[in-house]
């Protein structure tokens, strides 16, 4: 009876290891804090109405940022734990983590960073910025948007769920290669948590991909042909086309692994005909395009930033677009380079090696295009440009190591070594993460209404660069020394320990960089009035998102005027026309809880499948179906705002906008880090002296 009700759940599932307990307690405290604050400020209804059920891509975008930022810290703590373990575990010392726990940590680290940090930030940026860039008011399907976001959140909860119940995560590496991930070698629930957190968020990503493609292809402003779209929109389009192409492969593969584990099937087992190599092929057919899915929007961001801050049109627009397209296309044909060492033979290995080499061509074209854009420009080195310059150096390092790895005989010595780990961190941190930081510092004024503190931003940037070099250059060296990845301990005679210690120190410096980024945001909030963006266009932008207020009204644009050229906003500024806007009725989608409800049932079903609680799984699946059907019976999904109301709101907004604050004034500079520390100390002293909380 107990087995029927609870499946594999029993008291053993509660956390019983010190680190797990620490994690559980942290999450519970965090959750309680949020609940207490919301209840005390009576903000539950506000939260539900304004944010959780919102279908506004701007709000969904901000929610993506918040969750992704939280996961960045979570994944970063994993990274520090990894660095520390490896710095300590030389010779007879086996560090402070058991081998199994260490393996779970780096698995979680990889999954979190790729699925929940990078994808989260990218989806946030696409949600917020792309509609603004193409003069649309919303995505094609607001429902799919909110559903996709809540499935992502369900995945986030699932990947952390083992802290509360289960006490183990997959210990297989971030892609859970078979047969290690089968029940024979991983009998616990860890791999099941892995499967379902990725499956749910993967489906959310696929839905998002369909949505973004529909939006970009069908909802552009009149006159904006494909060849007039901004570069970030292009990068996003290519990325989303790849999403809908390869995420179904992930869905199918995870499904097959689930079938092996839940129903005792034999797709990837070592017996009865199973073929574990097939898993490797399938998972990497998804896995390689995935990293290009992450980096293409980043390339788009860099193209925008370089053009705007060079005050010059992007050089050779067509070449850049074709290059991005070329990268997407070839990314689909290189997956075997992740397992040259499996013994496929020289012909097969050569083919995939050559295909991998070919991707370097369009990537180089993009870099040359950026050089040509800067040539005879007039470059302002605000923080976004710094992130671009940092990206070039680090990404090139990653690219070169990638070309080395693409040569099969060289790969035989470098595969699965720390050289490989350094390579992909160089490309993902240098390309994707720096692209995200660049995009966020670039578009922050649009999103928040005030720009970010430049001085602390620069401090944070340099911390990242120094920390990165300190952490990853020794890693390349370790790879050359023959150090394998994922080792929880190693011989003292190898001489690796000093390098591991250097890596750990580098990691701490990166952590300082992250802390400074948080400080940067707080400092900007403190100096909000001075940093306010009153024009909606603080950088003298070239694309349409800068043609709205900062932040934009919920309907983005009062009127959808046609577009005639690339860099539409620059053209409008050049023409300088001030035509009286013709207001029309606007249809806006209503908020809906359908996304949350369906995602909640999906979470329940997945949780049930992890623990083999069959009846609960059926309830979950039934719930999804019922919610979906209920939604189709709902006719009232839009509401109309009459033209007269729009006109009123626009005129009111123009009246409310204060006179422009001096943005580049020399007398009142952005506060420095030292200024910030002084402010914090003064506040703390005030609190201690007066013994009462300052009201916000």
């Amino acid at each position, binding site marked *: 009876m107990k087995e029927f009700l609870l499946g594999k759940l029993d008291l053993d599932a509660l956390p019983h290891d010190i680190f797990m307990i620490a994690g559980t307690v942290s999450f519970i405290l965090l959750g309680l804090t949020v609940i207490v604050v919301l209840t005390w400020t009576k903000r539950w209804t506000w939260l539900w109405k304004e944010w959780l059920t919102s279908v506004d891509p701007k709000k969904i975008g901000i929610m993506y940022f918040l969750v992704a930022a939280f996961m960045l810290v979570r994944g970063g703590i994993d990274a520090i734990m990894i660095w520390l373990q490896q710095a300590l575990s030389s010779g007879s010392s086996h560090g402070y983590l058991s081998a199994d726990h260490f393996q779970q940590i780096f698995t979680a680290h990889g999954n979190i960073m790729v699925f929940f940090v990078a994808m989260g930030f990218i989806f946030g940026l696409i949600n917020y910025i792309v509609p603004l860039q193409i003069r649309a008011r919303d995505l094609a399907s607001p429902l799919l948007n909110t559903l996709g976001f809540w499935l992502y959140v369900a995945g986030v909860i699932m990947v952390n769920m083992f802290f509360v119940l289960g006490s183990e995560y997959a210990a297989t590496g971030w892609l859970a290669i078979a047969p290690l991930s089968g029940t024979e070698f991983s009998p616990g629930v860890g791999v099941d948590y892995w499967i379902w957190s990725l499956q749910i968020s993967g489906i959310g990503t696929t839905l998002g991909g369909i949505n973004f493609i529909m939006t970009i292809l069908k909802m552009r402003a009149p006159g904006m042909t494909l060849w007039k779209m901004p570069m970030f929109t292009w990068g996003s389009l290519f990325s989303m086309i790849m999403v809908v192409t390869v995420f179904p*492969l992930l869905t199918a593969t995870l499904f097959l692994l689930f079938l092996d584990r839940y129903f005792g099937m034999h797709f990837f087992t070592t017996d*009865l005909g199973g073929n574990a190599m097939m898993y490797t092929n399938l998972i990497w057919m998804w896995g390689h395009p995935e990293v290009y899915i992450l980096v293409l929007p980043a390339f788009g961001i860099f193209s925008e930033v370089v053009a705007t801050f060079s005050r010059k049109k992007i050089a050779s627009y067509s070449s850049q677009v074709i290059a991005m397209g070329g990268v997407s296309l070839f990314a689909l044909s290189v997956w075997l380079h992740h397992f040259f060492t499996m013994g496929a033979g020289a012909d097969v290995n050569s083919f995939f090696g050559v295909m991998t080499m070919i991707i370097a061509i369009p990537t180089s074209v993009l870099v040359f295009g950026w050089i040509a854009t800067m040539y005879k420009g007039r470059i302002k080195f605000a923080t976004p440009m710094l992130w671009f310059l940092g990206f070039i150096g680090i990404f090139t390092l990653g690219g070169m190591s990638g070309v080395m790895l693409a040569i099969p005989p060289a790969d035989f010595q470098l595969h699965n070594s720390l050289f490989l780990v350094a390579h992909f961190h160089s490309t993902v941190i240098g390309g994707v993460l720096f692209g995200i930081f660049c995009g966020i510092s670039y578009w922050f004024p649009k999103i928040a209404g005030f720009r970010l503190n430049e001085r602390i931003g620069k401090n944070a940037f340099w911390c990242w660069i120094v920390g990165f070099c300190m952490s990853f250059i020794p890693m390349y060296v370790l790879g050359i020394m023959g150090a394998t990845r994922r080792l929880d301990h190693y011989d003292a005679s190898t001489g690796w320990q000093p390098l591991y210690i250097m890596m750990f120190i580098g990691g701490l410096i990166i952590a300082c960089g992250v802390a400074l980024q948080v400080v940067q945001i707080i400092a900007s909030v403190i100096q909000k009035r001075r940093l306010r963006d009153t024009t909606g266009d603080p950088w003298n932008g070239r694309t349409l998102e800068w043609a709205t207020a900062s932040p934009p009204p919920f309907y983005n644009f009062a009127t959808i005027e046609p577009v005639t050229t690339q860099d539409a906003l620059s053209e409008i500024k050049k023409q300088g026309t001030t035509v009286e806007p013709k207001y029309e009725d606007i249809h806006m989608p209503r908020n809906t809880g359908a996304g949350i409800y369906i995602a909640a049932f999906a979470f329940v079903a997945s949780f049930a499948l992890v623990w083999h609680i069959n009846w609960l799984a059926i309830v979950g699946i039934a719930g999804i179906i019922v919610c979906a059907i209920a939604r189709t019976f709902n006719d009232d999904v839009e509401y109309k705002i009459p033209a007269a109301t729009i006109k009123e709101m626009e005129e009111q907004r123009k009246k409310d906008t204060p006179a422009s604050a001096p943005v580049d004034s020399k007398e009142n500079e952005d506060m420095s880090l030292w200024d910030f520390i002084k402010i914090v100390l003064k506040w703390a002293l005030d609190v201690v002296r007066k013994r009462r909380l300052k009201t916000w």
Partner: protein
Amino acid sequence: MVNEHIAESHEEAAMDRVGFGFWVYLMTDLLMFAVLFAVFAVLRDATHGGPSGQELFKLPFVLTETLILLTSSFTAGIGMLAAHRGIKSQVLTWFGLTFCLGLAFLGMELYEFAEFIHEGHTWQSNASLSSFFTLVGTHGLHITSGLLWMGTALVFIWKRGLNAPLVRKLTLLSLFWHFLDIVWIFIFTVVYLMAFV
């Protein structure tokens, strides 16, 4: 008058987008099936000494299933013609027929599965059977979803009558149904017919 016109073209534009988006979704579904087909191709001979498809499958039975599903596609097509003409009763009849045929197909498939399981050939027996049950079973799950969708749509039409947006949604349903039919043709060929080659 103008506002109504704008409202309708707004509605049309929305449906155009949804239609396009549905095609994209169908392509993702197709890719997922492609993986299952590829896996089947790799594993079909991994019977580990167990019976092959040739020994297990009964072609006349499967042929009947196939003809039933094909006919259901035909009846769905007639139903769509009626929908475009706005004839509610005919829509209910022909889609109702489609529903029954789909249900019969599903019943036959479940019967075939039950037979195999009864004889001791389950998805746990070997990789070949795992991939067979998964490929055909996933198709069956899709048919089930289609039937659920069809049932809901029929209730909708019965209670609220036909209107333009509903007809457009029916188009998507029939698209889904024809798609499943095409996938089945591939299954019939690759899984069943090719077992006898």
